[in-house]
């Protein structure tokens, strides 16, 4: 029972923390390295511009 409770808690915690942008809400800012030069890029540095964010993978 205790194990099940812990697993449920972990499942809820990870779900709550997942990426879930909401239409009409501010997108969370982030800083990640660019693959070309490893230089930092933040979403907020494009303030004033329209941005299309594309999450993808090559696999």
């Amino acid at each position, binding site marked *: 029972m205790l194990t099940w409770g812990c697993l449920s808690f972990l499942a809820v915690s990870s779900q709550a923390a997942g990426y879930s942008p909401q239409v009409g809400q501010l997108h969370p800012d982030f*800083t990640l390295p660019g693959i070309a030069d490893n230089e*930092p890029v933040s979403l907020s*540095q494009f303030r004033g511009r329209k941005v*299309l964010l594309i999450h993808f993978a090559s696999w």
Partner: protein
Amino acid sequence: MPVWNTKLQEWVREGRLVILGIAQEQHPDRCRLFAQWHQLNWPILHDPINVMQVRGVPIEVAIDEHGIVRSLRPDLKTFEEEFLDKTFAPKGEKWPSKSEKATRPDMAALRRRAEQSRSSDAWRQLGDTLVLWGGTRQR
């Protein structure tokens, strides 16, 4: 994504749109090859350990000039009319008042915070940052 690409490139060239790709790929070289193969010549960021906690890809998110999400998985047919050509009103001001160049995370500050707080979240953030940015190693 390749279907989108020609039209997207045009809007980027016209200065109407910024595209940021975020690749969940462990090896940047493989990601570079993929980008070359599909002729993706917009900036691609690297998230090898999924710090953004994205559950499934691909996801496209249209974000207006104020940082507000305007659509998820937008339709190419209506993207120009319903997003690019529109002027959106600001809603709250949480981002910096002007755009600033991004900087690398302060590794020493993150380490101090982790050591002082002893919280698992702070240690996890330090660990993620070390993996992403390579610690104090210069590249």
